[in-house]
Every structure is written in structure tokens, then in C-alpha cells.
């Protein structure tokens, strides 16, 4: 299996980490991850979403943006945007991630590429989703994270501890 299974784990409150092995050189994959016209070609899922516009100012501090449309064009287009933090071709690119319609602080996405004999292991890490983003104003977060991990860890139940008297 190439990509990890799409079900959440308690660790997701810290970071989502997934890997895939691709039979292509790192430099080519890096280009696909960091140039607008290539992003629009691959960043989609049939019947789910597609990228209709992308822009990349590929340098530390440079802005990136992509506009994503839902399945069949029935859902409104939403924008994801951020700023490149680290640009180290062809091994690493890291940028902030903020969805326009989400009332939530920005998070951090890192792509890491490791090539061996023309095959590249691609790892994506989406971090600062919950607790890390709040490190600076951490009070009260342990409870939220604990309840959340309980819920994520229990399959599909709801956290019961702390749910009242």
C-alpha cells in the first residue's frame, strides 16, 4: 500500500504525517509540488475536488495560493493560501496553510522528498492543526486535546469523560 489509510488517529491532534513512494526523481516531484501549472494538473480527486487556480511565489516569505472547487462544480470555490517558510529544492518545501472559510488559525505543511535510485519517498506533514498552534496561549488546551483524542481514539463514539456531572 502506498498511502497510509485515511482514518484519524489521536496523534492527528499533533500532526498528520503520510508517505508515498513514487517512481520518479525528487527534482521532478519537487517541481510538481511548487509550480502553479503543475499543481493544477495533479491536485485533484475524481468526484471530490479539483484545483482551478494556483499561484506560487517560490521563495521563503513568498505567497502561494490555490483555489479548489468541490465535486461536479456544485460546491463553491474556496481558497487555500499561505507563505513559504522553507524552500530547499529538491528535498524540502514548507509553507503555512490557511483555508479562507475556516475560522481557525493557520497550520503548517511540509513536503519532504528522499530519492534513492530514481524512486522517491514523499512525506507530507500537516502540523500545528490543534495544540501546537496554540502553544503561545496554551491555557485550557490540554482538556480540549484530551477530549478530542478520546473521541478520535474511540472510533466513532463521543468523548464521555468530562461531559458534565
Amino acid at each position, binding site marked *: 500500500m*502506498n*498511502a*497510509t*489509510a*485515511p*482514518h*484519524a488517529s489521536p496523534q*492527528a*491532534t499533533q500532526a*498528520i504525517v*503520510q*508517505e*508515498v*513512494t*513514487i*517512481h*520518479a526523481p525528487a527534482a*521532478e*516531484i519537487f517541481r*510538481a*509540488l511548487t509550480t502553479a501549472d503543475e499543481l493544477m*494538473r*495533479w*491536485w*485533484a*480527486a475524481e468526484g*471530490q475536488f479539483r484545483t482551478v487556480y494556483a499561484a506560487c511565489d517560490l521563495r521563503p516569505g513568498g505567497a502561494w495560493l490555490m483555489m479548489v472547487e468541490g465535486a461536479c462544480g456544485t460546491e463553491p470555490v474556496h481558497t487555500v493560501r499561505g507563505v513559504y517558510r522553507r524552500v530547499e529544492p529538491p528535498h524540502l518545501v514548507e509553507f503555512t496553510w490557511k483555508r479562507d*472559510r*475556516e*475560522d*481557525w*488559525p493557520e497550520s503548517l505543511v511540509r513536503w519532504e522528498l528522499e530519492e534513492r535510485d530514481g524512486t522517491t519517498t*514523499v512525506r*507530507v506533514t*500537516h502540523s500545528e*492543526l*490543534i495544540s501546537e498552534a496554540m502553544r503561545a*496561549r496554551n*491555557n*485550557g*488546551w490540554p*482538556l*480540549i486535546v484530551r*477530549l*478530542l483524542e478520546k*473521541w*478520535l481514539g474511540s472510533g466513532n463514539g*463521543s*468523548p*464521555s*469523560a*468530562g*461531559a*458534565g*456531572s
Partner: protein
Amino acid sequence: MVSIQQQRNAVFKAVADPTRREILSILRHGGQTVGGIAGHFRMSRPAVSKHIRLLHGAGLVATRAEGTATVCTLNARPLRAIGEWLRDYEAFWSTSLASLKQYMEEKR
């Protein structure tokens, strides 16, 4: 109808504030009156009430009248909106990696 996105944003907004997280923490051991909760803070009681209303709006705090007092209890269930948001992101990245792999390997 309230959309999933709106529900999520209500919960996000509710827990994004340290005072409101503190209120939830205070309630984790059991119900308390609005006055009892306000006693934990230096801000005015109306200000605390406003936070409680927002938590109530997000479904995280249930209220019931007990005599002249309003008793608040914690309801953790709406937090599943954040859990679902994380699950959606996990599925999104999994799909994205599969899509990247297919694109790169077909190109060659």
C-alpha cells in the same frame, strides 16, 4: 439549515478563546452556576455570561434553570466537529498523495 462548515466554525470559534477553554475546564468536574463560573475570573459577570452564551450557541455548554440561578454543564459532543475536520484532512492528504503518485508515474 446549519451547514457542517457553520457548525465547525461555531465550535472552532468557541474553543479558540482561552477564557472559553477555561470555562470548559471549570465545568469538567460538574455543573456550575453562571455566578460560580464568573467567580473564577476577574472580568465582569456580563462579560463571562457572553462567553457562556457563545459556548452554549456552539452546543458545548448546556444550561438549565435551578431556582433563580442558571446551571451550566459541559457537553463535549460538539468537539467531534473538530475530530471530523482532522479526519477530513487525513483523507485529503491520502487522496492528494495518491493523485500526485498517479500524475508523476503516468507522466513518465
